[in-house]
């Protein structure tokens, strides 16, 4: 195609033509047009069905107690009521949802900070420096990617107990913060950065830490944000660990708290849905705002690391 000039121009217009035709509905063959519409209809129906449980969750959270337990199910709250939220968010109960919300946000934010800080610091020498023991350290970190976390539950419970961290948020923030995935992910990213900038900074007299802080980190913002999001989501949503290491009602995170809310109000679905909505709002907001980072982070991780 690139051999001679005139035919190549013709070639190019010939190849782009069908693509353009597919885009403008007027010039498109009916078969393609029908297929396009079928795809839209099928996808839209599927997507609406798929998302409907979440819609019903939100709708129910604004229903009255009686309305939430009546059949046929209504897809609009009538009467519209915020009683469920008032009840679960109200003070003086055994299920202080607002307190749990604060606990979860604080724990997840500190956890994400700790994960990104330690992983970035660790990933940098593994990407850029030569030293004895590097292979062993990196090998050990990668090897733990294969270790199922179940093996850590019992010993970490005892370690956390010996540190007097049981029933505190520190137990949620710290023990899961050594992210092998984070080190791996950031190392891959650092390896892809242009070496020249770092070398230039070194020649200008910057020390290793200054190079890392002033050159590498600013260039790595997308990767750092992606890792922070994933760490936040994982910690915010974590369920098993908080259920077993937090006991006092006021120390629960939201997922663990929702579990106690469920045991306390087994059939008060209006309250349960209100609690679930409160728990969903931050992650859905984060998802809508940073969808690109989250989805790109996940899809890239499947291929290149």
């Amino acid at each position, binding site marked *: 195609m690139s051999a001679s000039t005139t035919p190549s121009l013709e070639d190019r217009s010939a190849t782009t033509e069908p693509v353009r035709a597919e885009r403008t509905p007027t010039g498109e063959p009916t078969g393609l047009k029908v297929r396009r519409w079928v795809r839209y209809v099928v996808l839209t129906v599927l997507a609406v069905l798929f998302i409907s449980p979440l819609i019903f969750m939100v709708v129910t959270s604004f229903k009255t107690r009686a309305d939430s337990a009546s059949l046929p199910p209504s897809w609009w709250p009538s009467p519209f009521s915020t009683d469920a939220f008032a009840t679960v968010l109200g003070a003086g109960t055994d299920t202080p949802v607002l307190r749990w919300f604060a606990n979860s946000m604080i724990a997840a934010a500190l956890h994400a900070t700790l994960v990104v800080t330690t992983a970035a610091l660790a990933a940098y020498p593994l990407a850029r420096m030569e030293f004895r023991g590097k292979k062993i350290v990196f090998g050990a970190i990668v090897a733990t990617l294969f270790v199922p*976390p179940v093996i850590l539950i019992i010993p970490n419970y005892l370690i956390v107990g010996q540190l007097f961290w049981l029933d505190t948020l520190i137990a949620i923030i710290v023990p899961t*913060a050594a992210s092998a995935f984070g080190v791996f992910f950031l190392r891959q990213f650092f390896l892809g950065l242009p070496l020249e900038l770092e070398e230039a900074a070194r020649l200008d007299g910057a020390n290793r830490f200054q190079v890392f802080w002033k050159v590498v980190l600013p260039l790595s913002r997308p990767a750092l944000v992606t890792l922070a999001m994933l760490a936040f989501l994982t910690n915010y949503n974590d369920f098993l660990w908080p259920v077993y290491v937090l006991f006092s009602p006021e120390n629960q995170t939201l997922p663990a708290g929702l579990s106690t809310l469920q045991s306390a109000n087994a059939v008060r679905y209006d309250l349960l849905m209100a609690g679930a909505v409160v728990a969903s709002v931050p992650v859905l907001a984060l998802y809508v705002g940073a969808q690109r980072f989250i*989805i790109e982070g996940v899809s890239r991780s499947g291929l290149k690391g």
Partner: protein
Amino acid sequence: MASTVTAPRSETVSDDRRGGAPRRRDINSVGIAPWLFLAPYLVLFLAFVVGPIVYGLYISLHRYDFTLPNKPFVGLENYTDLFTPGSITFSAFWQSMRATGIFTVFSVPLLLVVPLMIALVMNRKFPGRNLFRAVFFAPYVLGVAVVAILWRYLLDSNIGLVNYYLGLLGLPDNTAWTTSTPAAWFALVGVTVWWTLGFNAVIYLAGLQDIPRELYEAAEMDGANRWQQFRHVTLPGLKPVLSFVTMTTIIASANMFGQSYLITKGAPGTETRTAIYQIAETGLRNYQMGSAAAMSYVLTLFLILLSLLVFWLFRDRETPKRQKAGAPVQAAPLMLRQGKG
């Protein structure tokens, strides 16, 4: 090893540089710098990952009860008990392993096929595609607690939506989704597929987009129909992604906990109580930590064998080297799906 991280030294470097040749060797010598960078991570890594792996082994060799003063050494007793029919832990453990097995066997194929179909439908450029992708991924960002409490409501045998709409379709409308088998298995698998299919779909979609268009064009020119194109272009092109998705999905399913804990509470009886659930209850509710640690090591062994089997099934017969290089890369995001079931 000379110290290289202090400020005075950098001054000397710039002085030297004025004098002439750049001191490349000096710039590349690292001293203790890498260890200073690694230190914070390694503290956490040793204290809460490497240490516990060894400590867990130690616990599993003792009759270790958190609440009792004496924790006598019992050798392999906790392990032999798990393999001795009639012992206290035997039936509970293997029933939970069976539950995990049933869940894995039914959820994994669905989680491999359904997201692939969604990804194939979406593997075209069309307006609104990113919106659809976002919708299918959305449940995945929610935690298991939200998902399970929501579905506990929808699956309620009296006032739940699921039974109501099944009734409208003329199907039985009184299924006890959360308290009877096999209905509970349908519920647990169905909820999990709904919750996590977006994760696999997004990875498939990225994999599909990496297959060069020319391959399809060439296949089309050779007269291949859509099925043949799928069979001979799409599937081989997707192989590395497929092996990654299979691996992560199996491990995630084998780690299922929250759905069973919140939706069925292990009911009926302890039939839907999974292995992780059993380990947590044995160790952290009944404080038989020695037994629980032994169980977690047996489960881990199973998971490792399963992973090796998957590696072997997907091994690249033509170019064995590539597979080797790909392995750790593909294991990287396991963390994202751990425990997601």
